[in-house]
């Protein structure tokens, strides 16, 4: 355990001069437009931010302006939701060109997308739909990721999505699929621990088995967020709403993930019912204290 905690990102602390270096070990926060002005005026002590790539595809406007100013002071990750990598439609060249443009503009340390699909026949669902975990899908999405990495000239990270259904065509588990995609394409994995927990509950598997199925070296970022519970005719379904604090069970999973994957950059995400910024800061501090406690234990 100690090896992994010691040998990873290490002591790369927060600081104004590290905005071009590797991602800081301290937890970052998902940047949402309602917090732009707060971040600009208060310069909160946040290790790094992650922004949704598509929100900054425009030529101008307040979002682009704010992110340019925020980027001058914080390390940044760009996280895409619309590339539809798992789709069998041709790769959307315009979307890819826009992605290249925002990468050139904001020079993010990390670039990530989702291991999902959202379009068919040119029609977009604009949602992160799960793939059938088959050999065909694995080969397809693996080659698409390789195409995108070639076009961008850099490695990207792929995030595991939360899901509410599984396709009966599946021939492998989700974690086998995720690990296979990383092996096939050379991409990194952004392991969303909330999504692992949600999927594990909804599909009745063990979260820890999922973690053990992912090779140690491929995970380069963690996401933490909150979910909602809905009742579907007497059956409880967990839905990835990003509208609540990280729950205790997901914090436990985070501890297990730190032990397995080491000191990987961690992000707090919140989307619906966005609270005041200090709530997100408190979540980030909690992640930092968990990581410090584990490191102390390992020392």
């Amino acid at each position, binding site marked *: 355990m100690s090896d992994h905690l010691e040998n990873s990102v290490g002591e790369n602390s927060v600081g104004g001069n590290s905005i071009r270096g590797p991602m800081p070990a301290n937890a970052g926060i998902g940047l949402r437009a309602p917090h732009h002005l707060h971040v600009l005026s208060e310069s909160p002590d946040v290790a790094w931010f992650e922004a949704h790539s*598509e929100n900054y*595809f*425009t*030529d*101008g*406007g*307040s979002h682009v*302006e704010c992110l340019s100013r925020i980027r001058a002071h914080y390390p940044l990750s760009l996280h*895409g*939701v*619309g*590339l*539809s990598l798992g*789709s*069998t439609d041709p790769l*959307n060249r315009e*979307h890819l060109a*826009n992605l290249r443009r925002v990468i050139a503009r904001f020079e993010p340390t990390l670039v990530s997308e989702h291991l999902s*699909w*959202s*379009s*068919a*026949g*040119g*029609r*977009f*669902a*604009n*949602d992160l*739909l799960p*793939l*059938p975990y*088959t050999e*065909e*899908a694995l080969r*397809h999405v693996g080659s698409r990721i390789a195409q995108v990495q070639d076009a961008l000239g850099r490695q990207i990270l792929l995030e595991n999505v939360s899901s*509410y*259904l*599984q*396709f*009966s*065509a*599946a021939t492998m588990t989700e974690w086998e699929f995720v690990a296979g995609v990383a092996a096939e394409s050379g991409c990194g994995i952004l392991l969303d621990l909330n999504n692992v927990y949600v999927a594990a509950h909804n599909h009745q598997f063990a979260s820890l088995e999922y973690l053990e199925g992912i090779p140690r070296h491929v995970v380069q970022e963690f996401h933490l967020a909150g979910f909602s519970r*809905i009742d*579907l*005719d007497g*059956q409880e*379904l967990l*839905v990835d709403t990003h509208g609540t604090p990280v729950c205790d069970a997901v914090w436990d999973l985070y501890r297990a993930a730190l032990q397995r994957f080491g000191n990987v950059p961690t992000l707090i995400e919140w989307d619906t019912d966005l609270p005041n910024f200090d709530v997100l800061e408190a979540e980030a501090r909690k992640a930092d204290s968990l990581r410090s406690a584990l490191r102390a234990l390992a020392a």
Partner: protein
Amino acid sequence: MPSLRELQAQVMDALLGAMSPAVTALIAGPPARAERRFGVYANTVQGNFRDALHSTFPAVRRLVGEDYFRQTAREFQRHHPSRSGDLLHCGEKFPNYLAQLHPDDEFTYLADVARLEWLIQESLLAAEHPPLDLGALGRVEPAAYDRLRFELHPALRLFESQYPALAIWECNVGGDAEPPTIDLRSGADRLAIVRHRLQLQFLRLNPGEHCFLREIARGECFSAAVDCGGEADADFDAAAALQRFVAAESVVAFTSMVKT
């Protein structure tokens, strides 16, 4: 087993339209549970689309009310699903869709309010541009003006309506107070929507100015734009118009057209 392409086409049909037994069969577990779980996705897909339309068209949403907006957004999505990974673009055809729904009734004005809202969004998200280089313009020989091709600010949009669409928009965005009643016959709109830094402004145009800017926007040379302004308004003053739009940072650049 269907191919990945077939599976995705069937699922997309069901998400945008209605669930089918074929899609239920694609999903693991008992059919009733499969359908309930698929419904979670269908609700999200429709909700995200509706929310995106709402954020582009807040005044239309307020004018028609939640129930009508929800129903119209659903139908619009069936006919014109999102074609991009970015929902910002999903409302492009919404003004025309409303025009087709209400060709000649008490809601005919809605399409124009929607068109205004779409242009406002475009303006808000367009690139910045510095003001026109007056020194460079001063060095142009007066005789060469006719062949200049002026350029408008990237955030400028021209808007025309037979209704007072701007007044309707202004009292239906921001604030929860009951908006005043506006007489639909209280005046037509002829506007340039402009943006300075992040601030929107609306310049009211006379017919000559409108034609003048429209020709410039089309890439016509100065003399053609002046002629068009003069045709629309016998009193059109080209020098005053150019001065107004340069000062307002609406005309921001020029190039000399090469004689052919």
